[in-house]
C-alpha cells in the first residue's frame, strides 16, 4: 500500500504537523508513564538493596559477637555476684536492716584489739525506693550507706583496726576520721570518730535478677 501525500503544499504541512504532534504525544506518554516510573522503581529497588546489604552487614557483625558477648556477660555477672553475694563486699541487709549488719562487721573486726567501741549510728539512710520506671537517670546501681562510729583506742590500734576493715572489705570507705588526743594520760586512749561507708544496691533485688540472668545464659549454652 502506498500512501500518497496530497499535492497541495498546505495540506501536506498540516499532515506533517499532525504526525509530529501524534509522535510527540506518544513520546510523552512513553516517558511519563513507562520510562520515569521504571527508572524510579529501579532506583527504589537499588536503594533498598543497598540498605539491606548494610543492615545485613551490621546484623551479621552483631550476631557474630553474640557468643563472645554472652561469655563476657557471664564472666562479668559472676564477678559481680562474687563481690556482692559470696564476699558480701556490697552490704546486704538483714531483714531489711543495714545497720545491724554494719554493726556486726565493725564489732567483729574489733575482736582481739584493745579498743572500745562506744557507739555505732546510722549516718546516711538506706536508698530511696526505686520508682516503677526503673533507676532515674544519673543514679548509679549502687548507693552509699554510711554509719558513724565512735571508739576509744590508741593510735596504733586504730591504724590496725582500720587496716583490718580494709583488708576484710576493700570496697568499704572511711570517709571521715577524727582523732582527738584528749587528756594526756597513760596508756593513751584517743577519742576516735569515723564515718564508714559501704556500697549497697540501689535496688536490693538486682543481684537476684543477675543470678537469674546467669542461670538463663548457662542454660542456653
Amino acid at each position, binding site marked *: 500500500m502506498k500512501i500518497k501525500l496530497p499535492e497541495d503544499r498546505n495540506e501536506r504541512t498540516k499532515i506533517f504537523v499532525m504526525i509530529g504532534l501524534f509522535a510527540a504525544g506518544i513520546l510523552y506518554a512513553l516517558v511519563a508513564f513507562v520510562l520515569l516510573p521504571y527508572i524510579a522503581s*529501579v532506583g527504589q529497588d537499588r536503594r533498598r538493596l543497598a540498605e539491606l546489604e548494610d543492615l*545485613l552487614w551490621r546484623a551479621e557483625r552483631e*550476631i557474630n559477637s553474640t557468643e563472645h558477648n554472652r561469655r563476657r556477660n557471664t564472666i562479668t555477672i559472676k564477678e*559481680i555476684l562474687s563481690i556482692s553475694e559470696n564476699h558480701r*563486699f556490697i552490704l546486704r541487709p538483714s531483714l531489711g536492716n543495714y545497720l545491724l549488719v554494719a554493726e556486726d562487721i565493725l564489732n567483729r573486726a574489733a575482736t582481739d584489739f584493745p579498743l572500745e567501741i562506744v557507739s555505732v549510728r546510722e549516718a546516711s539512710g538506706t536508698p530511696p525506693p526505686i520508682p516503677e520506671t526503673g533507676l532515674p537517670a544519673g543514679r548509679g546501681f549502687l548507693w552509699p550507706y554510711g554509719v558513724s562510729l565512735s571508739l576509744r583506742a590508741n593510735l596504733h590500734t586504730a591504724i590496725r583496726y582500720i587496716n583490718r576493715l580494709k583488708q576484710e572489705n576493700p570496697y568499704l570507705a572511711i570517709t571521715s576520721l577524727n*582523732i582527738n*588526743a584528749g587528756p594526756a594520760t597513760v596508756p593513751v586512749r584517743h577519742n576516735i570518730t569515723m564515718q564508714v561507708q559501704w556500697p549497697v544496691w540501689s535496688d536490693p533485688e538486682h543481684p537476684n535478677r543477675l543470678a537469674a540472668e546467669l542461670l538463663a545464659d548457662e542454660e542456653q549454652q
Partner: protein
Amino acid sequence: MSLAINLILNNERRSGSKLSGRSLSRIAAIVSPLIVIVILLQQGFSRFILKTNLSILESRWESAAPRQTFAQRQQGRLNQNLQIAREIEQWKVTSPHWDAALLAIMQSTPEQIHLTNMRLDAPPATGQPPQTSPPIRQPAIRIEGRVQEPGAMAAIQSFRNAIRQHAQIEPLLESADVINFAADAETRGGTSENRVFAIAIKLKTLGETR
C-alpha cells in the same frame, strides 16, 4: 558565452557513492529497532537480576532480624553489667587508705611535737552530690599539734617535709602547708614557749573525674 547542454535530466541523476540518503534510512530502519530491542532485553535482564537479589536479601534479612534483636539485647545486658562492674570497681579505687596515711604521719612525727588532733576527710569532690555512686573523693588531712620553743618552727617545717617525702604520702600528695602557727593560749601554768600549729594536707582526687 558558453553553452551547456544537459543530456540527463536532474531527476535522472544518480550518485556514485555507496551511501545514499535512502540506504542510510533503510539501515536506520533496521538498526534502530534492534538497538531498542537490545536495550529493552538488557534492562529486563538486569531488572530480573535486581529483583532476584532483592528477594534473596529480603529473606536473609527476615531470618537475621530476630537474631540481631537478640544480639542487641545481649549487648545491652553486657553493657549494663559492665557499667555495674565499673561502678563497683570505682568504690575500691576511691576508698582512701587512711591506715597508711596515719602510719606515715606517726613515723614522721618528731619527738618534740605533740599531736592534739587529726582529721582525715574524703568528702565527695566539688560539685558531686554527697549520695552519688560511684563517688569521687577529695581526701584531705588536717593535723593540729603543740611544740615547744626554741626551734618550734623548724621542727614543724621538718615535720611537714617528712610527711611530704614519706613513701606512702608522696605519690598521692597535692600540697602540704602550715596554716597556723601561734602562741598556745590554752596552756595552763605553762610558759610562753609553747606553740600550736596546724598543717593542711591535700591529696589527689580519688576516682574518675567526668
